[in-house]
């Protein structure tokens, strides 16, 4: 009977997620900071390579540059979200909810994933004219991008919850997140290269598999460790 006293998890998940979207739609802090950051990245990279011949090397450079933009845009978003939580002491309130902390983790993961995907759409929109990026030739890239996002954010949300509480935690998140998410980065760039150099899906398959393994492992680690990292 005690079970009935406990509120159901799914409505809580939906309510918390709706709260994240409502806050973001009102303040627009995450989308503006991530989007602007991504735009600036494309402009700076574009300026750095302007006038170069549009050959194979250039195309490969653009692909790598876009992954770098994605990674750092994710870090910017995670840091901004953590800073907002810290300012309003909101995070400690979330941890007092009568749910497993994994629920809070999933909500944050889902909302950040949405912002990151929107940022990436913006990135692609800019990179197509500015960096002569040929995105639409490879529909399989959509799956690769989504899987890589989940992998990066799975550990990002976990680590940001701890570094977000510290002064100067922004720089720490960058240092902490890069080494552990490198498997995702390796797999994502490997799959991108295989798809865009025309070697086809067969060549990209091992990398997609590695992405899947990383996603599953990092998600499991995040779900298990989020509560531990933020207890007390």
């Amino acid at each position, binding site marked *: 009977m005690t079970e009935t006293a406990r509120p159901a998890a799914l409505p809580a998940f939906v309510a918390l997620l709706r709260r994240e979207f409502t806050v973001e739609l009102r303040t627009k802090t995450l989308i503006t900071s991530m989007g602007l950051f991504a735009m600036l990245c494309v402009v700076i990279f574009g300026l750095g390579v302007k006038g170069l011949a549009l050959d194979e090397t250039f195309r490969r450079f653009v692909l790598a540059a876009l992954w770098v933009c994605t990674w750092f845009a994710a870090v910017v978003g995670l840091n901004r979200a953590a800073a907002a939580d810290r300012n309003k002491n909101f995070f400690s309130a979330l941890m007092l909810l009568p749910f497993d902390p994994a629920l809070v983790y999933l909500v944050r993961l889902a909302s950040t994933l949405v912002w990151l995907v929107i940022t990436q759409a913006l990135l692609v929109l800019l990179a197509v004219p500015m960096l002569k990026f040929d995105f639409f030739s490879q529909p399989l890239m959509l799956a690769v991008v989504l899987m890589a996002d989940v992998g990066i954010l799975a550990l990002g949300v976990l680590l940001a919850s701890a570094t977000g*509480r510290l002064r100067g935690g922004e720089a720490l998140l960058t240092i902490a997140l890069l080494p552990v998410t490198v498997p995702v980065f390796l797999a994502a760039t490997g799959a991108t290269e295989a798809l865009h150099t025309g070697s086809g899906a067969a060549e990209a398959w091992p990398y997609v598999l590695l992405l899947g393994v990383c996603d599953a492992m990092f998600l499991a680690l995040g779900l298990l460790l989020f509560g531990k990292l933020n207890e007390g």
Partner: protein
Amino acid sequence: MTPGTSNAPLITLALSALGLIGVEITLYLSYFYTPVQISAGTLYVVTPDSGSTINLYESYRIFFIHLPAAYTTALCCTLAAVGGIAWLLTRKDAWQALIVSASEVGLATGAIVLLTGTFWADYAWGSGRIGSGWNWEPRLTTMLILWLAFAALLVLRRAMDTDKQRAMMTAVYGILLGPLYPLVSKAIEIGQTSHPRSFSDLLSAPEIATTKQVATIGVMLALVSLVALRYCWNRLGQRMAQERAA
């Protein structure tokens, strides 16, 4: 795995003594027992870009340091992950000391692996100039990442505000180090690689095989004794902090 508080210094002393002897024997064997001139065909390695082979001459002697240091780095990575899990389960300070000492020694042995690896690669694959052999080969790159992760753990630990947060972060990041080891070990199987897959293919001379085995045990003992030494040191630091707080 964690030595008891009373036994730890004794075990450390024993490991250090054995390690010292092991290193001496390895050094002797690698300079006076292994052949200077190898008969043709036994010490050739394929270059990364083309299929042609190059002669290693005496450069292979660096493997006797490189290999045990790499094994110890792998061991340190595993110890950090095991320590992280064990601390979350038991909350005993000893595991924290183990994670920290494994990361510290991992940082040092990782540096040895990277340096000896690139020295050798400069000689074998590059032009001999510093850095010419660094070719973003998967094993080299993943090892660098593991090294950065050890450094990140120690930096993160220092940055934490309270003891509890510090312990949590250390344990969690220690666990996150775990998946990096299989990545380093599997790196030679993904993509194009120039790292030798197996030394026994390369170094077929029996003297070299024997020295390699002695070096693996001897030098590893010395490096593992460093983990034990740092462990004792960190335990002492923890006890001092406790006494000061009391």
